[in-house]
């Protein structure tokens, strides 16, 4: 009996050690990943907010049938890129009020992947579904796509490196979650417990509440995040089977990878409208995405995709037509169990299926994840600082480790919201004709973050916490005002107008709410500071060495 107890305590303690260090090592990067990922649930809405030139066209109530919209898009593509190797068309739907089309050109020899990707960014246009004409040219921005890529590719490095770094952080996260559950002695007894104004206790309660009460989400998002890139993290099985020829593997496993080659015989593309009507009859809802491979070739192929929203899978049901004759070739049959399991896990992570309510729940759980990482990082400092309580009381200084963690915490927890806000501000304030404008926006994000992180390293004090939190609050909270001053789609219009502009209103309101939250945090810190100063008037040492930034809550 007694031995069992001893072993149990030992396990708890060692798990506590694992939890602390697995968490601390990667927490600042995880915070970036969590924040960018949470924002990425609304990446289309963010992109739309960041392209105000499109707002006017989106505001018109659109009643165009998707077949007519597809015909408009095909006409535009025939004019611009008749010899493209692929056309991609997104038709107006619930989350996308406009017709967007893009194309890829046949690969030229000697073009690097990066060059191809950059060229692809230029090869697109947006049509107003009401008039069929081009919308005003949107500004050069990557919008929410930047945040989405930041979430797993990072920036200023090759995507492969970014994915490895994020993947390792995610593995640490998984370890931290599991060890955290094991080490949490009173997980059921403290299930609903939150005790404010109790210093370390309160931080621990907040950490537990944000972690335990959304545990299914945290576990799911970390695990499925690893699954999305599993072929990269665990290459051995596919290497053994396919050797260096990984593309064949992808083509075998995901039948959606196109393997047809152009016949190099010209053949006009068949009328696309009947295909869309046929798909709509079969599914009971109109397709939202059209992919044409090798248009105007005898081997042309048209794929229509059903809107997601009925199942978890990220592989949407599709119908394939012969592009030259217009005849139905196939519709996606059942995919293998393994593939559908992966598609469901992948789908869970990216949540394309989510309706507005479910999406909001994912967003809130993502914010809880941010809170979990942030409170965990703060807890380390709060606990470690107690070891220095006596030294600080005698006018000494805290150790290097505590100071470093404090500074990193300020730079990440208070600095990252500033960086996000600056990214959105730069979208509106940078001159429109700037060369490489979308890169300049990203540079603004990182410049702001670097500034915050460096300031925090120079002076990791309570005053710095308040300064950066206040800055973030002002920048985020004033975004609706900035939007009102720089566009015609301010809250007065977007709240009471048609459904097309609702994403803009949503963006404005959510940033306002987040700004208020940061402002509240700054105000709360200031009040705490005053109270502590009043409570210890006889301790001049405390004034000379500003007390721990977030110690006694």
């Amino acid at each position, binding site marked *: 009996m007694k031995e069992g107890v001893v072993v149990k305590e030992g396990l708890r303690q060692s798990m506590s050690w694992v939890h602390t260090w697995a968490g601390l090592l990667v927490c600042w990067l995880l915070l970036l990943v969590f924040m960018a990922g949470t924002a990425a649930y609304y990446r289309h809405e963010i992109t739309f907010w960041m392209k105000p030139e499109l707002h006017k066209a989106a505001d018109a109530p659109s009643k165009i049938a998707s077949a007519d919209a597809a015909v408009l898009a095909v006409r535009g593509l025939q004019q611009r890129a008749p010899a493209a190797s692929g056309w991609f068309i997104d038709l107006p739907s619930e989350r996308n009020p406009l017709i967007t089309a893009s194309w890829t050109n046949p690969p030229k020899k000697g073009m690097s992947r990066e060059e191809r990707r950059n060229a692809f960014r230029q090869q697109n246009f947006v049509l107003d579904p009401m008039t069929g004409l081009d919308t005003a040219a949107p500004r050069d921005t990557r919008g929410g796509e930047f945040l989405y890529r930041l979430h797993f590719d990072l920036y200023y490095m090759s995507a492969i490196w970014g994915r490895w770094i994020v993947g390792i952080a995610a593995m640490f996260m998984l370890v931290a979650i599991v060890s955290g559950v094991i080490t949490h002695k009173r997980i059921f*007894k403290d*299930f*609903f*417990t*939150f*005790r*404010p104004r109790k210093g370390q206790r309160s931080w621990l309660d907040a950490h537990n*509440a944000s972690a335990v*009460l*959304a545990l*299914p*989400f945290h576990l*799911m998002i970390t695990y499925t995040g690893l699954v999305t890139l599993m072929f990269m993290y665990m290459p051995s099985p596919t290497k053994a089977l396919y050797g260096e020829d990984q593309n064949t593997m992808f083509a075998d496993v995901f039948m959606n990878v196109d393997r047809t080659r152009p016949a190099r015989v010209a053949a006009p593309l068949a009328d696309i409208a009947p295909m869309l009507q046929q798909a709509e009859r079969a599914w009971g809802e109109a397709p939202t995405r059209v992919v044409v491979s090798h248009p105007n070739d005898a081997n042309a192929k048209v794929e229509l995709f059903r809107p997601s929203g*009925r*199942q*978890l899978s990220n592989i949407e049901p599709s119908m394939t037509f012969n592009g030259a004759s217009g005849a139905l070739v196939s519709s996606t049959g059942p995919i293998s169990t393994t593939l559908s399991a992966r598609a469901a896990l992948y789908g*869970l992570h990216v949540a394309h*299926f989510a309706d507005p*309510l*479910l999406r909001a*729940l*994912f967003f*809130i*759980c993502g914010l*809880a994840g941010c809170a979990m990482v942030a409170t965990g990082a703060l807890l380390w400092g709060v606990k470690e600082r107690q070891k220095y309580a006596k030294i600080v009381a005698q006018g000494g200084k805290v150790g290097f480790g505590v100071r470093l963690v404090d500074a990193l915490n300020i730079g990440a927890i208070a600095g990252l919201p500033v960086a996000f806000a600056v990214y959105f501000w730069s979208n509106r304030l940078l001159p429109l004709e700037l060369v490489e404008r979308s890169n300049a926006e990203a540079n603004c994000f990182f410049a702001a973050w670097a500034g915050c992180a460096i300031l925090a390293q120079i002076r990791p004090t309570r005053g710095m916490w308040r300064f950066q939190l206040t800055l973030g609050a002002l920048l985020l909270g004033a975004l609706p005002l900035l939007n009102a001053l720089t566009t015609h789609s301010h809250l007065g219009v977007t709240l009471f107008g048609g459904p097309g502009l609702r994403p803009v209103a949503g963006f404005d309101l959510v940033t306002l709410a987040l700004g208020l939250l940061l402002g509240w945090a700054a105000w709360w810190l200031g009040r705490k500071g005053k109270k502590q100063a009043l409570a210890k008037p006889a301790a001049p040492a405390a004034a000379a060495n500003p007390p721990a930034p977030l110690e006694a809550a």
Partner: protein
Amino acid sequence: MNMLILSGVALAFSGFAAKGVVMDRHYADIHGRGKEPDSAVRLRMRLIGWLALGLSFIACIGASGWHLGPVLWCGVLSIAAWSVTLLLQYAPRKVLLGAWIGVPAALLAAGLLLFA
């Protein structure tokens, strides 16, 4: 559909509330320091709590199907649990009152599932 989700949220809230109010710390917060629920009450409330959580699961499945329903339920559980946590701290007596919302919610969910 939305009414079904709403009743799912209400049921999850009631379920957690029922389990929360008989936990030692929260029971003492509500009824005074040192008071403890007797074991029959505790058992009954716990059973009611699990029942309400189960009904909330059924409501979510009814609203969104077997694919998305469980995902929805997880989100609903988190929201309900955070609400109960905050209420137990800042207005513990309101939890006793609020827990009753599960009864009309259960009737509504049953009605919608059986007759609609």
